[in-house]
């Protein structure tokens, strides 16, 4: 008797689990890099900057972490193990799949641009955080939160290159940014990141290389957090 009951109970749980799993929905968080109104195409197009300069972008990579949905400032859903490397050279990396419960009401999405300090001191990690992804500083521990590389005639550097590797997790040079955007529904979210606004603020003849944590890196990271908007 007891035994039968046990089996029934098990079946019941299996059933519940299944229905729960089925009722979850998959939504995409889509990142769309742009330069003003133009789509951003790596290595190819030349984009006009304000002061008569024009630039090419060769690499754009950044970490998005700790994705959450909020309803009136109350967190209603958090992604577990939420670390995503968004790389403009990989179309799939720009569409982040999120598995969320159905029928949630929310009006905001919040995520970090970069990797938080706890993860930065946790040693080596896998997946998108694996150091082979080229987003880890080797001579001084820490993740690069945001990487932008390209060329401009204004840069009096080797091959006219500019390199912005922004990161740093220790005060006073913590570069991590939290970004909150208003959304209507969580089913499909497209986030535009407009690099023109950033590049117009930088005089590449003076500033063309940041490769370690610094106040400059913190300043630019703040600027970058303001480039994100809902399409």
């Amino acid at each position, binding site marked *: 008797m007891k035994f039968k009951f046990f089996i029934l109970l098990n079946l019941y749980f299996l059933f519940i689990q299944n229905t729960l799993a089925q009722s979850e929905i998959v939504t995409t968080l889509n990142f769309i890099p742009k330069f003003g109104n133009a789509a951003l195409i790596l290595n190819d197009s030349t984009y006009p900057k304000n002061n008569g300069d024009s630039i090419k972008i060769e690499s754009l990579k950044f970490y998005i972490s700790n994705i959450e949905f909020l309803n009136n400032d109350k967190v209603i859903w958090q992604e577990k193990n939420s670390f995503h490397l968004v790389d403009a050279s990989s179309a799939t990396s720009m569409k982040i799949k999120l598995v969320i419960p159905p029928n949630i009401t929310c009006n905001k999405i919040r995520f970090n641009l970069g990797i938080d300090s706890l993860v930065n001191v946790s*040693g*080596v990690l896998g997946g998108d955080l*694996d150091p*082979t992804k*080229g987003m880890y500083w*080797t*001579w*001084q521990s820490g993740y690069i939160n945001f990487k932008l590389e390209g060329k401009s005639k204004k840069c009096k550097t080797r091959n006219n290159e500019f390199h912005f590797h922004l990161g740093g997790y220790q005060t006073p040079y913590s570069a991590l940014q939290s970004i909150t955007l208003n959304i209507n529904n969580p089913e499909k979210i497209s986030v535009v990141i407009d690099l023109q606004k950033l590049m117009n603020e930088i005089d590449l003849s003076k500033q063309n290389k940041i490769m370690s944590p610094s106040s400059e890196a913190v300043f630019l990271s703040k600027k970058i957090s303001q480039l994100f908007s809902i399409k």
Partner: protein
Amino acid sequence: MKKKLLIFIFCGFCLVAFKLQETIFFTEPINWPKANYDFSKNPLSAQKIELGRALFYEPMLSRNNTISCASCHSQYTAFTHVDHDLSHGIDDRIGTRNSPALMNLAWHKLFMWDGAINHLDVQSLAPINHPDEMDEKIESVVTKLQKSKIYPGLFKKAFGDTVITGEYTLKAISQYMLTLVSANSKYDSVMRKQSTFTAQEKNGYNLFKKNCSSCHKEPLFTNLEFENNGLALDKSLNDFGRMKVTKKNSDSLKFKVPTLRNVEFSYPYMHDGRYKRLSDVLKHYTEKIQTSPTLAKQLQKPIILSSNEKVDLIAFLLTLTDKEFIFNPKFSYPKNIFLPKPQE
């Protein structure tokens, strides 16, 4: 009822066996502080340690397959560089610092002379990437290992996966380094009351406790802090140590306090290898301390040692030699992996 009890006992047994399996590879010597490394995130196993050992001796970690970790960290000199003041890397390039001896790393929190590295697992990235050391990228290391004959098998045994990743590679190297525990010198056996110091060593030990152990703290013989021990700045290197990382003036000229275990073998001494002999080191502490705003307060009053006392102090330092560590076959070049097996 009886059956339940049996199951219970069996489970308990499994748990103990599981725990035992972990502790066999790493034990904290008695009366030592707790290790800092979080083993739960990288549980030790015989296969992972063995893989890490192979990787430590693997020249494929360098751009032109010539330099391995062991090139600069040789077991027979307590895992430091043999006879070079500044490290000697790929294409005979000379680095800017002396390679430290490696041991008891499970207790360390920050790595490198300036603490630029915050975790043992990411330590290896620094030499692999450094243009004067191995000048390679972890991405290509992984590709090379994946293509090799031996490594996919070794990774499969260790991690259950033939796909090699940066994470697995670095965790395996950590595992090997974690096993490098030196705790069996004459000093240790005296502390365990299994042998005794000579009168000279005993006197040296007292002098050591009075003058040195605030920084070179027992039982690790380092307090793992960053201190300025009064070395004059070498103008050709302009190395300000910890300040480079924290960007604070108060950290100028501070370097990680090195362990003095196996100091007999870890010459040349200091971050730039400026001293060849222990007598030079004692001369520094007694005669050559440079005052500067960050000089450690213990060294602001001159240390006075007679020539006999210097001899005694050195006699004590030599009791920190751990032959079992230096010659432990478990740490040495893994012939069984690298050399072809003789035909039967």
